[in-house]
């Protein structure tokens, strides 16, 4: 039985303004491009980082970062 369903990070590009908090809070999953916009690493978020990921989603000033469940796909 799985403890947690895996989840993937996604960016709403229409709302993202390049604040860059996500890269600070999830440095192993997100880096910033030349213009301050997030480059999200492919693949699901590791279980260890899940809590930090949820925090990054909650803290994004533009509410542009999403955590989508990949369970059942």
């Amino acid at each position, binding site marked *: 039985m799985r403890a947690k369903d895996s989840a993937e990070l996604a960016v709403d590009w229409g709302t993202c303004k390049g604040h860059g*908090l996500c890269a*600070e809070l999830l440095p192993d999953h997100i880096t910033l491009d030349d213009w301050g916009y997030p480059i999200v690493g492919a693949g699901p978020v590791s279980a260890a980082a899940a809590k930090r990921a949820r925090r990054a989603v909650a803290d994004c000033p533009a*509410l542009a970062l999403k955590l989508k469940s990949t369970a059942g796909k």
Partner: protein
Amino acid sequence: MNASVLWYTSQATGIVSLVLYTMVMMLGIAVAGQGRLPGLPRFGTVALHRSISLLSIVFLAVHIATAILDSYVNISVLATFVPFASSYEPLWVGLGAVAVDLMIALVVTSLLRDRISPRIWRAVHWLAYAFWPIVIAHTIGLGSGSGGLISGWELWLTIACVLAVFAALGWRIAVQLERSRRTPAQVLQTMRSEVRA
């Protein structure tokens, strides 16, 4: 308890709340404009905005509780949340109640930020621009603590808070104008002239 201690505590915590909420406003404006505070990472501005707003709640709670408990004036618990229900200075206390209601909406939606729809969160958070002026009005009406409008050093402090927020707003508007000027055509123009340089 000595009535005046309660009253003066209410006044004092009221002034502190004003200053703290002014800081919260400025920090919120800084976040929206992507402003960085020196020495702090980007999430530092957001974290500070959140921490100070939660701290303000503590001072606000004391400000309200002491005002209710104080027997010098008649302010009921109901009057805290229902605007203009107080028998003492219904207008100015009522504005305080409006501010409290708005504050609750702001804080609750922000605590549930990742669970509610972004559009709803944003719509409610815009109410901050109504909340803070109402706080200022409430302060002006009751800040002197003894009938009549605010005066003396409390007045100057309030003016300073207003000027600070206006300055932050001015910066924010300038940032927004700059941002809205950035179109693909403008970026192309800038890139071309950089090449020639």
